[in-house]
């Protein structure tokens, strides 16, 4: 049987692990090669399915963290305690392994190239993964506010610095550390609050769109704060990953 997906139908496709990159002690980026993959829209996710030797299957959704492109994509996975899928992806999978994916998925939490509005991206923890794809692909003014527990929990540190430097002022990254800040950091560890948000938010007349991704509580709080500081609620798009059963 031909492996190519039937156009218009969403089917499971084989994906080969081409490489892996450790992001933190408990998170890893997997580079996946997929025949016939035509790219994605930043913000989309894929479902990843694993099959055990006895035929048992489990699947989970993971955001695509790479820039769009043919034939290859990257997903960034945070290992979840007692998870069924994520510990395998973070600790076990190695180059050459085959998984199955379906996607790209989701047409709502996406930043399309045709959308010329400036964007405020707000990520909590590993919720920064789909925002990383948006940052990499950014052709319009983009601000990222990234809340993370500590420097050792921060994903994409080098990639974000690279994107910011290469963006020619188009991309601005602000980090907030909630438990441990790096030595010499100007602010003590703190939760993201309305003040921090107001400092990076676009002025109301900029007609900016906001993308918020993270744990459910984080997303609810940030979406409420955005509305409080005057952001148009219809221009807020959210993605929650909830109590990760990963």
């Amino acid at each position, binding site marked *: 049987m031909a492996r190519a997906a039937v156009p*218009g*139908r*969403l*089917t499971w496709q084989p994906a080969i692990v081409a490489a892996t990159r450790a992001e933190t002690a408990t998170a890893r980026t997997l580079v996946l090669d997929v025949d016939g993959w035509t790219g994605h829209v930043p913000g989309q*996710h894929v*479902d990843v399915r694993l099959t055990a030797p006895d035929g048992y299957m*489990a*699947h989970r*959704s993971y955001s695509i963290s790479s820039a769009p492109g043919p034939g290859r994509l990257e997903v960034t996975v945070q290992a*979840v*305690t*007692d*998870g*069924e899928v994520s510990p395998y992806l973070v600790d076990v999978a190695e180059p050459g392994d085959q998984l199955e994916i*379906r*996607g790209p*998925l*989701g*047409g*709502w*939490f996406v930043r399309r190239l045709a959308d010329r509005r400036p964007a405020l991206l707000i990520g909590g923890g590993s919720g920064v993964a789909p925002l990383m794809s948006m940052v990499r692909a950014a052709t319009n003014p983009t601000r990222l506010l990234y809340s993370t527990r500590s420097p050792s929990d921060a994903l994409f540190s080098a990639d974000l610095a690279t994107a910011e430097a290469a963006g020619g002022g188009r991309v601005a990254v602000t980090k907030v550390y909630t438990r441990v800040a790096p030595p010499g950091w100007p602010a003590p560890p703190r939760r993201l609050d309305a003040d921090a948000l107001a400092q990076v938010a676009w002025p109301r007349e900029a007609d900016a769109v906001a993308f918020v991704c993270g*744990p*459910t*509580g984080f997303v*609810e709080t940030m979406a409420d704060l955005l509305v409080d500081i005057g952001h148009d609620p219809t221009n807020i*798009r*959210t*993605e*929650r*990953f*909830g*109590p*990760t*059963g990963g």
Partner: protein
Amino acid sequence: MLTVHVEADDAPWVDGNALAGPLGEIMGTDLTVAELTCAGCRTTRPLAAMRVFDRAPGLVARCPGCEDVVMRVVRMTGRVLVDVRGSLIVSLPVPTA
């Protein structure tokens, strides 16, 4: 058995984006951009913005406004059941070329 580790500061739901795969597989289109009118409170939101409770035998989407159920998706052997009695209208964008 799947063991779920629930973080203390986290709510037990994800959002409708999580239905993109399970529904796309059977519908052949992305239903997360469909707008659903809740039969409980009559507000209209994209399916992507509904709350989805996914740690159960089925997937249950609830309105974030009034918490009424707007959609249930249950997978059985060889069939997928979609219960939409909690939605008055399911409105989909016309596909573009």
